[in-house]
């Protein structure tokens, strides 16, 4: 568990360093995720303690959003006149993004299946 946590923090640190050195527009943890992925791929397997720690952390991933979410109390007044437009915009846009992404992916999968089917005939 300590080893796995050290690995995760180490890769995050490496990600931060890469982002700053190369002035990338993405945050350090995302680069850290890519670096860890590449390491696992090169290694050919994921060590068991790392798998356990990762799945434990990700099971309750949403807990980590609570502190920032409580910040709503600071902004409630600023946006008090806009609460309904913001809610409508966020809800509609999120539903649209889910629907459009899912339909696009499903359509592309079917197109490919169709193309493969033709090639086999």
């Amino acid at each position, binding site marked *: 568990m300590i080893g796995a946590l050290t690995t995760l923090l180490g890769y995050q640190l490496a990600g931060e360093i890469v982002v700053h050195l190369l002035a990338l527009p993405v945050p350090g943890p995302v680069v850290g995720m890519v670096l*860890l992925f590449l390491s696992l791929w090169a290694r050919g397997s994921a060590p068991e303690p790392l798998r356990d720690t990762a799945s434990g952390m*990700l099971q309750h991933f949403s*807990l980590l959003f*609570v502190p920032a979410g*409580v910040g709503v109390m600071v902004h409630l007044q600023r946006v008090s006149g806009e609460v309904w437009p913001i*809610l409508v915009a966020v809800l509609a846009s999120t539903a649209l993004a889910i629907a459009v992404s899912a*339909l696009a992916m499903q359509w*592309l999968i079917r197109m490919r299946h169709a193309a493969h089917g033709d090639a086999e005939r």
Partner: protein
Amino acid sequence: MITPQIADIWVYLSARPLLWLTLTLVAYQGGYAIYRHFGFHPLLNPVALAIVALVGTLALSGTPYQTYFDGAQFVHFLLGPATVALAVPLYAQFDKLRALLVPLGGALVVGSVTAIVSVLGIGWALGVADATLLSLAPKSVTTPIAMGIAEKIGGIPSLTAVLVILTGISGAVMAKYVLDALGIADHSVRGFAVGIAAHGIGTARAFQVSEQAGAFSGLAMGLNGAATALLAPALLALWRVL
């Protein structure tokens, strides 16, 4: 003489990280227990329940957010290593991912643009102020990324953090209904769509549904973080020209 003592203890504890850190964990676990008790019903999102309980507690006790965050920041900090940890399920699903490269790439671009443009368009049509619109643009990507983007395009990063979480909760709540209505059964498609639109909170929900949905959602979340960082400034520039 008991009351003044309790008051003293409260004054001592309420100014220290331990109390608010503990209450954050208690509130989340309370929310999660309710969520689980009702068979993981999407409407009873544990993040939403925890936030409501904590905001209520802070308001009733007159505690400023900054005091709360001094304690809760230890939980907030774990967003970084947890994001790195997404590499593990991603690697486990690698063969499936590789087979789906083109559908994933296509869905990513279309979904990312939809998430940005639709929130700007709808918000603008409903008369949302400019600073709020700019804070809304990166709403579909995970908190640290979205805050960075908001800063770059002239939004308010801490407002973005709140909007990101609102988006995540909405996505986690609505995904099942939207995807069922569209008749989409494949867990890789369902997970990927949720990850694009609703980042980590959607991903947490996806992991509770299945490992496959979770891995694809985590992938989508990471990819859309990068895609939105590139697309949001470009789309905004275009928006201003038009």
